[in-house]
């Protein structure tokens, strides 16, 4: 296990709290200024992902979700936001200057914050992050909710597909008419929901049995290192954040 931890590359080797600071700084900087800075920040994020060994998976997800959203958003905005100054038109569609301006602002925001979140998801290990946050006073209940959610979704998905298979074998097809498909929904969800609820009660007993609510200081089997480098990085990131916000305010005053 220890070896695997050491193999975490780039940002992934940081203390998760430091990575979280980085993500926040990237997100804030990307929306403070105009779209050119946003594009630069996003480019930086791709580089950071690549350095950490997540370049391909990050870019793939990024193209599939965010870029697609931005393209659709841009097209719809520039075509359908009411405006006077028509830049280009064909058939019943017309691209208007007002629409394009609005679309650039919106899309750079979506792209900036969105990419930062996506990067965070790739670079920060949820388990490590909750461990660090818990050390700093976050409730163990919050840790439980977050980690358990991550575990429960694949479990329930598996059960769901088993139920769906059973439904199929009883003759309910997912490619039949809308009414039939709608009717398939409730018998699939019902047992899943009830089972999950009943098991919650027993799970509560399990947690009590494992001293979940014992009133003592909790420890962690694997402590996450917080090196001097991490502390320095966090200080640097906070300075960047303050400088960026200050710079933005100065720019705003100067422009006025």
């Amino acid at each position: 296990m220890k070896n695997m931890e050491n193999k975490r590359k780039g940002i992934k080797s940081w203390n998760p709290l430091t990575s979280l600071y980085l993500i926040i700084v990237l997100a804030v900087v990307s929306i403070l200024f105009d779209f050119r800075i946003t594009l630069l920040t996003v480019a930086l994020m791709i580089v950071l992902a690549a350095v950490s060994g997540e370049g391909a998976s990050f870019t793939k997800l990024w193209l599939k979700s965010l870029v697609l959203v931005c393209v659709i958003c841009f097209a719809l905005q520039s075509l359908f936001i009411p405006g006077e100054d028509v830049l280009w038109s064909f058939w019943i569609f017309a691209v208007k200057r007002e629409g394009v301006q609005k679309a650039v602002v919106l899309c750079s925001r979506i792209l900036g914050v969105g990419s930062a979140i996506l990067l965070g998801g790739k670079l920060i290990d949820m388990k490590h992050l909750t461990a660090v946050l818990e050390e700093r006073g976050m409730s163990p209940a919050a840790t439980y909710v977050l980690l358990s959610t991550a575990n429960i979704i694949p479990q329930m998905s598996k059960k769901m597909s088993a139920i769906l298979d059973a439904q199929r074998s009883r003759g309910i097809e997912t490619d039949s008419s809308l009414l039939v498909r709608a009717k398939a929904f409730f018998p699939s969800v019902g047992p899943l929901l009830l089972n999950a609820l009943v098991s919650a009660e027993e799970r509560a007993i399990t947690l009590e049995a494992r001293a979940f609510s014992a009133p003592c200081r909790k420890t962690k089997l694997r402590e996450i290192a917080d090196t001097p480098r991490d502390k320095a990085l966090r200080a640097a990131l906070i300075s960047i954040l303050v400088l960026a916000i200050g710079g933005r305010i100065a720019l705003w005053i100067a422009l006025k």
Partner: protein
Amino acid sequence: MDSIKITDLTYRYPTADEDVLRHVSLSVKKGQLCAVVGANGSGKTTLCNAIRGFVPKFYKGEISGEVLVNGKDVQREEIGVTALEVGFVFQNPFTQISGITDTVYEELAYGLENMGVEPAEIERRVEEIMGLTKIEAFRDRDPYQLSGGQQQRVALAAVLVMNQDVFVIDEPTSQLDPQSTDDVFEIIRLMKNMGKTIVLVEHKMEQIAEYADKVVVMDQGQIVLEGTPEEVFSDPRCEAYHIRLPQCTRIALELKKEGIGFEKLPVTVQETVEAIQAITGAGKDGQERKG
């Protein structure tokens, strides 16, 4: 000294119309294994929950009487504090996984983390218990991916590692196959050898006859019979309370009907063999019949 002392306990679930426990008194000495048997709905599980303090803390409802564990009043303690005194394992293996660990190793460590044990000590204790309970083979496996029997063994180990003095184990094998049942009882025997006080609800009378120091029969929320396995299983009232006797005892009873006299009814395989040998070896008519 009594590890568990229950005095005149009466309890009713909040939404029920009848008491589920009625004037129950029971004491279990330190190091004893007390088996609780009885028909479904006789109050066995509720009794377990009362010893652990889940009744009335978790389930609410009206309670009277007293439950002392190691001399401490469970009802006055916070529900989380009792975790340090009483280990608790129940029927369903699938819901006894904490749900937030990725490996069996972490699953065993989870309780100790919650108790605030230092990491080095956690490692030492988890290693030790994994060895004793023979679950090292699953060490790095996802607890969710184990079979029911394996999960139940992990659940037992995950509680045993917390090293409380008293364990309450509610029907640990009712959803398991025979092989897993044996594995689970192997762990229960281990617990007993470690000097733990155990309250065990179980339907498998052969195992009870072999492991229990004391058997308690419950019926409609009351304790109706109490004693050593020999005393309880030879009591003719067992039938009225729908208690299935151990196979050996049943064979002995059948033999008795045939006119073979047993000094006392055997309850384990060992005892039956000895008793039959004693009769056939010493008594001439046994040999004559054979010849």
